[in-house]
């Protein structure tokens, strides 16, 4: 394991110290939103709870959830706890439909953000020796600015490259001696392709050492591809604008999940269907309460991201809880005969199975009272055509791998290459025929 510095003392507190800090900050946050935000005051009252009821960390469970729709209903500043005069920065999420989600920061929030990003870039290997190229789009999106503040805070040299203009990205990377790349994993893979087209070998002709990827989920297969292509050590990090932007959690070089800065965020895992709080190690929807934000504290935000929490001390020396790689979105989750299945799990299996392509189409239907899942995958390796035995063996292998990961049987159809639909934007790979009434 690569040894890195630990940026803050708070990352190594023992559990009791951490819980004490969390309780004190939670109580302050709950009082702050109750006092300043009509939405919270009303919701707390509807649930028969008031700030004085929060006596232990477990009392957090008495509070109602906040959901994405609450931002929309209170657009633009209705959820803010600070007067507009105290705000020094606004950001907004892209918002694919309708109004964007607006977030704001006080001067203290900006300091907190900078500090939390400094933690994640440090645990990912970046130091003041590094030149960091930020290939996220600068603008209303939180990603680029958040990373910029934190990287400068640790003393790295920041190139605020923004996204797009890929050939110029590669040229600057080469000429400035970029050592750390900050982007989405898919854009990093695309950049490597373009570099090759330009006759530049990303691994040998460039100086990259670190890849800090975020903004979208990725798989272990993608990590390996990125490491191999660029000759880097890559980590991923997690955040969302509703909570602050990037900096909520980040992976250390032990690669045992993403450390959540628990002195600023309290994570919970819930059953997405019932709202019931689940225990450590159990998989469910991540819910986060911010406990140090001034402008926009959020109580029990349902992230829709599916993960699990692990409290054992990490090899890197940090004691903060680790969240596992995001397995999917709770709104993508399929329930098949009581078993939760995520398209991302299926994708991971297919990417790691030789002979077939990464594209797939899932059909879910009922046969009698039983849920069935049928997955079309493309055969890409002609060597399997030597005999039926080999083709059937491949089919069996895909099924067995899926069974290992999903815990259920699936029907697998091998189809011709390029016969499945390709998606440029958000992929629609699941057809659930059970919904037809």
């Amino acid at each position, binding site marked *: 394991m690569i040894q890195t510095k630990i940026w803050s003392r708070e990352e190594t507190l023992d559990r009791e110290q951490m819980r004490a800090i969390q309780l004190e900050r939670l109580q302050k946050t709950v009082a702050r939103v109750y006092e300043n935000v009509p939405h919270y005051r009303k919701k707390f009252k509807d649930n028969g709870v008031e700030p004085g009821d929060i006596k232990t960390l477990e009392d957090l469970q008495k509070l109602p959830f906040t959901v994405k729709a609450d931002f929309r209903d209170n657009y633009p500043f209705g959820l803010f706890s600070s007067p507009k005069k105290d705000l020094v920065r606004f950001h907004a999420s892209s918002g694919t439909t309708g109004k964007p989600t607006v977030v704001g920061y006080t001067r203290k929030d900006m300091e907190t953000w900078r500090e939390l990003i400094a933690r994640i870039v440090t645990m990912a290997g970046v130091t003041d020796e590094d030149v960091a190229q930020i290939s996220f789009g600068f603008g209303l999106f939180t990603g680029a600015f958040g990373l910029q503040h934190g990287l400068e805070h640790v003393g790295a040299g920041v190139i605020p490259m923004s996204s797009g203009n890929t050939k110029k990205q590669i040229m600057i990377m080469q000429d400035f001696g970029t050592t750390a790349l900050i982007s989405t994993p898919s854009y990093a893979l695309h950049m490597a392709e373009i570099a090759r087209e330009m006759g530049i070998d990303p691994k040998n002709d460039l100086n990259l050492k670190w890849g800090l990827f975020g903004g979208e989920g990725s798989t272990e297969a993608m990590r390996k591809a990125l490491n191999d292509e660029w000759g880097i050590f890559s980590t991923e990090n997690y955040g969302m604008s509703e909570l602050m932007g990037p900096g909520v959690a980040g992976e250390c070089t032990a690669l045992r999940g993403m450390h959540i800065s628990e002195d600023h965020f309290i994570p919970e895992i819930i059953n997405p269907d019932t709202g019931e709080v689940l225990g450590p190690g159990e998989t469910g929807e991540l819910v986060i309460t911010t406990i140090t934000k001034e402008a926009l504290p959020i109580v029990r935000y349902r992230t829709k991201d599916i993960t699990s929490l692990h409290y054992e001390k990490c090899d890197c020396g940090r004691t903060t809880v680790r969240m596992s790689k995001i397995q999917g979105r709770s709104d993508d989750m399929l329930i098949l005969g009581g078993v939760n299945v995520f398209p991302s799990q299926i994708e991971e299996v297919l990417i790691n199975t030789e002979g077939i392509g990464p594209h797939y189409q899932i059909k879910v239907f009922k046969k009698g009272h039983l849920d069935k899942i049928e997955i079309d995958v493309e*055969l*890409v*390796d*002609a*060597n399997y*055509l*030597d*005999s*039926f035995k080999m*083709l*059937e063996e491949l*089919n069996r292998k895909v099924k067995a791998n899926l069974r290992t990961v999903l815990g259920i049987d699936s029907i697998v*159809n*091998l*189809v*011709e*290459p*390029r*016969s499945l639909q390709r998606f440029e934007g958000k992929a629609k790979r699941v057809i659930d025929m059970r919904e037809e009434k």
Partner: protein
Amino acid sequence: MAIRQLSVFIPNKPGKLAELTKLFFDEGFDIRAISVYDTADFGILRTVVSNPDKALATLAENGVVAKMSDVLAVNPEDRRGSLNEVFTILANEGISIEYVYSFVVEKGQDQYFVLQVGDIEKAEKALESHSVEVIRDI
């Protein structure tokens, strides 16, 4: 040199075979021999065409998964028991046979047999030493 055949992946859907033969027709490849085996979910088409190298490239360009492989082709004499002799010779040599299909080169003329066997070279030698005609070019 042995005969080369193409194995093509065909999903079990109506019209798939016609799509493929149309492609061969449009590109000017002659189908000398063809055989399709299927299971419930997919089929493998085996074919001997003129200019297999170019045919393979054309298939790849059109997104068709195909593999070229050597096969044994023989022209047994047109008399009772000749095919039995072919198989007996191979059996005596311990050569396994994976599949067999046959085709006629010209109407009313010889009938060729295509065999996928464990060791093509050994099979060719054994058959020729027993005066069975081995086809090396079609």
